[in-house]
């Protein structure tokens, strides 16, 4: 113990971190009956860290390339000790992360946490969600199986439908006119180099903003606190909130471990570039609501291609979503009914279309 103390003192003489951690000691977090929702962002961060760790482990055996990718994952899952578990954790954690990110977004939306002055936090968060879905989309192709091959074909074709810029984007994503081994190499690059760099930097910005501005209090609770100031409660960020958050992470780790061990992710069939799409093919659940919507739009709407119309509509809604804080009032009393209505509609729509897409033939 004396050694540890000496090391600490040696470091402290050189770094003097007291003023660095002082703000953390002063920082408080509002405490109320809805404060459990504050954990969702932290859990998403935790799952991202698991992704980084398991992703690095997978890189020890994964080989990109149309002739090797599937075989290398097969080898990893059948020959490498605990290979199946590492891959299963990576897949499950990816899915859970997207789920908690969505849940985090909707909780922020319903508690109006995106109001002024937190517009930038919202915008960075929405961009992060899109990037995380990009992680899912690019990672899905890497085992080079049939489902992934067709998902990539459809997904990149959707990008290609956007007027004017669509085709060059599709060529860039695919590394050619078709989905081939060249696409796999590009997606590998996006997945292990570009996206991690961009997402990590953006997470830093997102966290810095949260630290700087503190937690938002839901309007409902804020009204109660204004009416009855003695009801106002706060806890210290460090150690009280941090310890609670760690407990949430620990519980999350338990759920993740159980899912990964009990329901290991399977590998499927190797992609064949000259085979028909198998019956019952569907995208990952987080793309289902868009998939099902595009499936329902008729081929021609008035004079335009239904597909193009659908894609443009999703683009427009995405943009509105990104800019939502600018339409909302920063005062509790001035809260816009239509923004709340839109949020509820969006949540119901996403859930309903996902379920419909899941059960539909």
């Amino acid at each position, binding site marked *: 113990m004396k050694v540890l103390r000496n090391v600490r003192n040696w470091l402290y003489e050189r770094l003097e971190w007291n003023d660095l951690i002082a703000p953390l000691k002063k920082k408080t977090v509002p405490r109320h009956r809805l404060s459990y929702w504050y954990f969702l962002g932290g859990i998403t961060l935790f799952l991202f860290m698991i992704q980084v760790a398991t992703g690095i482990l997978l890189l020890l055996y994964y080989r990109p390339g149309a002739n090797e990718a599937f075989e290398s994952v097969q080898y990893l899952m059948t020959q490498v000790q605990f290979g199946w578990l590492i891959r299963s954790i990576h897949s499950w954690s990816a899915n859970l992360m997207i789920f908690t990110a969505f849940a985090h977004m909707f909780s922020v939306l319903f508690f109006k946490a995106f109001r002024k002055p937190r517009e930038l936090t919202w915008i960075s968060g929405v961009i992060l969600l899109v990037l995380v879905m990009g992680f899912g989309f690019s990672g899905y192709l890497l085992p080079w199986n049939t489902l992934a091959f*067709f998902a990539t*074909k*459809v997904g990149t*074709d*959707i990008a290609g*439908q956007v007027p004017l810029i669509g085709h*060059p984007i599709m*060529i*860039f994503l695919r*590394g*050619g*006119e*078709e989905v*081939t081994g*060249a696409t796999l190499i590009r997606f590998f690059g996006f997945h292990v180099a570009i996206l991690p760099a961009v997402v990590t930097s953006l997470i830093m910005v997102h966290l810095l903003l949260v630290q700087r501005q503190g937690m938002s209090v839901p309007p409902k609770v804020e009204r109660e606190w204004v009416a009855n100031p003695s009801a106002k409660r706060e806890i210290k960020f460090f150690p009280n909130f941090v310890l609670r958050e760690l407990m949430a992470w620990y519980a999350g780790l338990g759920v993740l471990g159980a899912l990964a061990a009990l329901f290991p992710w399977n590998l499927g069939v190797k992609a064949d*570039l*000259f*085979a*028909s*799409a*198998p*019956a*019952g*093919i569907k995208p990952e659940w987080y793309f289902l609501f868009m*998939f099902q919507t*595009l*499936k329902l*739009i*008729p*081929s*021609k709407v008035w004079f335009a*291609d*239904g*597909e193009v119309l659908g894609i443009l509509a999703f683009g427009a809604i995405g943009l509105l979503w990104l800019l939502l804080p600018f339409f909302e009032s920063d005062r509790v009393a001035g809260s816009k009914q239509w923004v709340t209505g839109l949020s509820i509609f969006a949540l119901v729509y996403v859930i309903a279309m996902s379920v419909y897409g899941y059960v539909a*033939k």
Partner: protein
Amino acid sequence: MATSGSGMANANYPSGTPIARRGFVELLLGSGFLATAAAFIYPVLRYIVPPQTADLGGDSVVAGKVGDLKPNSGKIFRFGSRPGLLILTAEGEYRAMSAVCTHLSCTVQYRPDLKEVWCACHNGAYGLDGRNISGPPPRPLQPFDVEVRGDEIFVTRRREG
């Protein structure tokens, strides 16, 4: 205007006087930086666009052999870099068309139970002539000509017009 011999003299100009010499240097520097940036960005932009590959398929391929297919069935064949679909109808007639769905480029298949061409991805259906008949596909599948020479089935791209 800028008659001062040294940079120091600029401080003597009343505010609002254009500092021509400094402006000139800034212009040089700025355009130099811009040119440098362009010299980096242009090759990178060209680099990320993959080179065109020739479609080695030509206009005609052997899609299969007589006897490969039973009546009322179909198979995928390779036409250059893209898949094609060869069908032997229940009536014993060969049909061929592109197997790339006009909706979102999935690979279609022949459904003997429906006697239709079907895309599993978004439930699109085409007739045996490639016409889009239901679901989201916006256009017909590109039809090919079929010719049986000896025991080989040749599929040929149709000439435009």
